[in-house]
């Protein structure tokens, strides 16, 4: 099997990276952009930028329509009944911070906020700090041997004092799908809000969030082949209504006086100030692009690539995989070799991978590890990329051992 990618030429940066001698395998950190996104960005700027929702003139009209079209596109792609359930933020990280402030009044002293042991700092630290502000307790759900959130333990620990449950759909370290629907159901039974970190999960499927049953779901545009500076927060209507506004300024206010103000409901009430207009339009183009792909062919390609990656790693001596990744990535260590040394020599050979603790320091500590190497794939990755990676890996290990 040659494992060529029919989508590679849709992403102009891949040819540029090839020409620079770079093999890009850090897709879980951020993804390259299809031509459609670049075109949408330049069309917006070339035809006349304008602020959204504020003016009566034609450019504003055009910008607002394009901006709101993305909201509608996101709502449709993720199974939201209404575009009003989609709030634009500056990224997934900002979405979790929005939630940790917006839900603050629902968390009191002695209450519990539940996260899992595999959370990215972005979906851990806002909750940790909320717990500190409110004198609440942060409860950490343990993982089983494969690296999944242990549902039996979760059922014990999600209890009547739980106010918020915040968990990742797909781990950026272990690459495993987590049982978020089951966990959200456990939270619902206790009257707790459920928050799902879809930063990695959204890249590998536009999930029906109504069916998933969570209250909130967040992801970043830049990992989903769109521009940086844009995040999406989906909320169930009643959950959004429970949020207090957190950032204050233009456009989120319905009525303002010197001493008091009234605020809009979601989504506008949570989009203070000028939003990243071009970025949101670019995200819309990324979603349109993804919608136009043959989903089955894409899934086959990703599965074949991932299998080839795992097979290649398994065929080499002394390589230890972290967990048993389902998709898209693999984190590994090599016996007797420091991951920083390996990263150094892969970098020397033009292999762009990620070494370290991948913004999940507590998880690494729990695994008893100081870091690992992560290889992460994308639709435009092909068999040649993997071959170059394995060649570089072999040469690096030859030098280091």
């Amino acid at each position, binding site marked *: 099997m040659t494992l060529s990618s029919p989508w590679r030429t849709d992403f102009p940066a891949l040819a540029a990276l090839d020409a620079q001698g770079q093999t890009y395998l850090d897709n879980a950190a951020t993804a390259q952009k299809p031509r459609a996104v670049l075109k949408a960005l330049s069309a917006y700027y070339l035809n006349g930028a304008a602020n959204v929702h504020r003016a009566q003139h034609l450019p504003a009209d055009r910008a607002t329509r394009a901006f709101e079209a993305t909201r509608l596109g996101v709502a449709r792609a993720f199974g939201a009944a209404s575009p009003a359930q989609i709030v634009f933020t500056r990224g997934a990280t900002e979405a979790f911070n929005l939630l940790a402030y917006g839900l603050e009044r629902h968390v009191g002293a002695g209450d519990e906020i539940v996260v899992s042991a595999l959370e990215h700092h972005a979906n851990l630290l806002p909750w940790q700090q909320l717990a500190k502000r409110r004198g609440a307790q942060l409860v950490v759900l343990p993982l089983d041997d494969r690296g999944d959130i242990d549902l039996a333990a979760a059922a014990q620990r999600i209890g009547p004092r739980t106010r918020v449950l915040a968990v990742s759909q797909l781990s950026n370290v272990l690459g495993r799908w987590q049982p978020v629907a089951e966990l959200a159901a456990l939270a619902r039974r206790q009257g707790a809000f459920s928050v799902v970190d879809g930063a990695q999960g959204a890249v590998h499927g536009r999930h029906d969030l109504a069916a998933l049953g969570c209250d909130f779901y967040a992801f970043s545009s830049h990992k989903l082949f769109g521009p940086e500076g844009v995040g999406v927060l989906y909320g169930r209507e009643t959950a959004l209504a429970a949020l207090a506004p957190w950032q204050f300024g233009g456009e989120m206010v319905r009525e303002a006086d010197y001493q008091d103000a009234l605020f809009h409901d979601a989504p506008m009430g949570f989009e203070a100030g000028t939003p990243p207009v071009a970025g949101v339009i670019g995200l819309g183009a990324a979603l349109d692009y993804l919608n136009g792909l043959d989903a089955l062919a894409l899934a086959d390609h990703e599965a074949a690539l991932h299998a080839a990656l795992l097979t290649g790693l398994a065929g080499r001596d002394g390589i230890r995989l972290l967990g048993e990744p389902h998709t898209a990535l693999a984190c590994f260590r090599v016996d007797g070799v420091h991951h*920083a*040394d390996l990263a150094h*020599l892969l970098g020397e050979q033009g292999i762009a991978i990620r*070494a*370290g603790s991948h913004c999940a320091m507590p998880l690494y500590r729990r695994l008893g590890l100081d*870091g690992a190497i992560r290889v992460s794939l994308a639709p435009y990755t092909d068999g040649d990329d993997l071959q170059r990676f394995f060649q570089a890996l072999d040469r690096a290990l030859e030098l280091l051992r």
Partner: protein
Amino acid sequence: MSDSLPAPAQAALQAFADQPGWEQRARLLMQWGERLEPLDVAERDERHRVRGCESAVWLVAQRRGAGWQFRAASEARLLRGLLALLLARVDGLPAAELASLDLADWFARLGLSRQLSPSRSNGLNAVLARMRALIAEDGRATDGSPGAGPSENAPPGA
């Protein structure tokens, strides 16, 4: 300028100057790393740990008369090599000279400037920053007067 280089630095320059390939450079780095004088277990402690490195790194600095003596260790072999090259350049220099030394230029002359790029988390930048902080702190403490006697430094909050 090269005439004023300490002898170990001269040697480093000669060794690295004509290493065009990454493999030769890596081999040489590892060889240099082996030369680092090991730290005692007791010295590999929180006080000497340099934060902001991908691998654990320790830096021990001692004031020796008008100069400094540095020792360093790391778990990563290539970083050990970079540390050895750093120490080859700075060891024994008078404090005043050390404070104004352009270390980025030093690594550039060795053909290793990429190891100092801001996106690198290999720790060399953090080690340099720690070194500068130690020197600046010492400069303030002794008001610039050398010969304050041997003192072992640890930064605040280490």
